[in-house]
């Protein structure tokens, strides 16, 4: 589904990614772990098409299409979703309004009829129940005055409504208490399906107790240093990132 080869990227004149290789197949869940500043978020932003990130080498294909040639909104409509690490507030713009516009943009691009307000409300209520969100959410502005946890829940809610083929979740677990973590994990797990894939970007093994990945990768210094199954995350938790970085030197 996603094939990244030798991807290098730079932000504000600084090289952050230095040749990342990663293949994600349909039905798989991958976790990308690594210390602060290793390039995890950069990778997520580059894949989503953030303009300030300059790709200097390598390629990325999404279902065989050249991902890097597509505009951010085209990537989204093709089924790529990014759960933001810091979801931005858009004052005065209703949450439901934004999400309905997003869903309809996607449906329109796929040649499907747009959903009307009633259908949409029924859909969003169902997903909100799963995410344990109160009705007051329907009338609020996008992330406006949301707590950190509410913002993350909102990201997952959007993902559930948009049903992406590939979801990249950038530290969706950070700032969540244990109850919220369970709710968010249940939301992500409900989307697991042989036709979809999920890439989790995280610092902590904790999330992976609830969403068990097929593969774990350690990103450090802009490169994937080590890959393995879910036991790798546990080993990292025990031995720390120095273990992997040290292994490279050795």
């Amino acid at each position, binding site marked *: 589904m996603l094939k990244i080869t030798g991807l290098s990227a730079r932000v504000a004149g600084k090289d952050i990614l230095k040749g990342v290789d990663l293949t994600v197949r349909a039905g798989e869940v991958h976790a990308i772990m690594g210390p602060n500043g290793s390039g995890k978020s950069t990778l997520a932003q580059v894949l989503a098409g953030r303009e300030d990130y300059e790709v200097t080498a390598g390629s990325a294909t999404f279902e065989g299409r050249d991902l890097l*040639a597509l505009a951010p909104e085209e990537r989204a409509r093709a089924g790529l979703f990014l759960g933001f690490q810091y979801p931005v507030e858009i004052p*005065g*713009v209703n949450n439901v309004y934004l999400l309905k516009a*997003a869903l309809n943009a996607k449906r329109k691009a796929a040649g499907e009829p747009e959903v009307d307000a009633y259908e949409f409300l029924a859909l969003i209520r169902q997903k909100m129940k799963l995410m344990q969100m109160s009705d007051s959410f329907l009338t609020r502005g996008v992330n406006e005055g949301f707590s950190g946890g509410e913002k993350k829940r909102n990201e997952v809610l959007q993902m559930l409504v*948009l049903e992406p083929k590939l979801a990249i979740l950038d530290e969706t677990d950070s700032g969540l208490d244990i109850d919220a973590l369970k709710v968010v994990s249940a939301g992500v797990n409900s989307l697991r399906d042989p036709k979809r894939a999920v890439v989790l970007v995280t610092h902590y093994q904790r999330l992976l107790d609830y969403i068990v990945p097929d593969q774990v990768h350690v990103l450090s210094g802009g490169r994937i240093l080590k890959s393995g199954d879910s036991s790798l995350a546990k080993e990292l938790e025990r031995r720390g990132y120095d273990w992997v970085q040290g292994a490279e030197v050795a």
Partner: protein
Amino acid sequence: MSSKSQDVEALLAQKYRHGFITDIESDSLPPGLDEDVVAAISKKKHEPQFLLDWRLKAFRHWLTMQEPTWAHVHYKPIDYQDISYYSAPRAPANAPKSLDEVDPKLLATYAKLGIPLHERARLAGVAVDAVFDSVSVATTFKEKLGKAGVIFCSFSDAVRDHPELIERYLGTVVPPGDNFFAALNSAVFSDGSFVYVPRGVRCPMELSTYFRINAAKTGQFERTLIIAAEGASVSYLEGCTAPMRDENQLHAAVVELVALDDAQIKYSTVQNWYPGDENGLGGIYNFVTKRGECRGRNSKISWTQVETGSAITWKYPSCVLKGENSIGEFYSVAVANNYQQADTGTKMIHIGRNTKSTIVSKGISAGHAENTYRGLVKILPSAAGARNFTQCDSLLMGPECAAHTFPYMEVKNPTATVEHEASTSKIGEDQLFYCLQRGISAEDAVNMIVSGFCKVVFKELPMEFAVEAQNLLSVSLEGAVG
């Protein structure tokens, strides 16, 4: 991303949509201004002596005045002798008595602007007065309003039919010598709208005036006077457009509102004068004095404005809160794109006890534009218990534009409460990217973000016009963010 630059170009190529010129014979005075011109305007309108005297007094006072320079706007000096002070579509012998007699070209002009003047075609519940250059060409729904006792007519008709009301109220809120542009207007004003809502009457429909500048080298100097007698209420809306011309045109209007005991006036403006092209060539100079006086107890005046047009805007719709417990409100969205300059805001003058005012100003700057909020809250010693709340927010789109805020406060009563909140934000790359990542196009995303920013003001507009305002906003900002 490859398609993006093309999108931007396509968007930028979209031009001002009301910029056409109507080819119609007009009766104009040659450019120039002296006492003879003032007298000629008065004569053309068959005015009573008191009005001619009033005009001449204003003109003599204007000659002693200096054009103000304190506003944060820049423009070449205006040659007041190079402007024609009167232009009217040439009517066959007598003025039209009904819409059927109005020149079809004029009706077509308004239809093109989306303002069909034929009553049956008009949105139910909105009466329209249409002012073309210097004269009013049609006022709709006169009869229905007449039954309710409401007078809604052109200013010229009011001078002819209700001279006593004109003599009693004209210039009592904005005196002829109030400021340079108000004095000029007082000398040469040609037409405008007049509204009188008698005691205890709620005006049964929205009233609106549509102003259109057509002739070249002409100034538009309209005068609007609205009086709500005891317990009366009225909602009034004005809209404005002009053709695209390379030279700048002057628009110096005066609006006076009078609210007596328990009366309410809601005045909404959607201003879309031609803003000039993307290089700053041409456009309207919109130098306007608008003021309302809450003369009676428990009266209320509310200004709502959506300002998207004009090369330069200089306007401060204000409230003089004389009556006890009276309320003044100002809700504003001012957009400046390309090389537009806007210096706008309000004055809230608290005189009566327990008077209240609310100011909400939203400024949006894009391109190379300069957008200034200038507001005065003045609480006089007599205004015990007065309260003011001010919120002013600025939104910047792109790196070349600027926003300025000049709040002035003079509080001379210790029991007053004055609150001020201000913010400046950039239309976030983050907000934009967030929307794009959800599959929403850049254009829709910008519209969404800007509408969200303006929401509190839009909800003050009469519903039919809130939609128009929102559309106008998206047209004005097209291409502002790539």
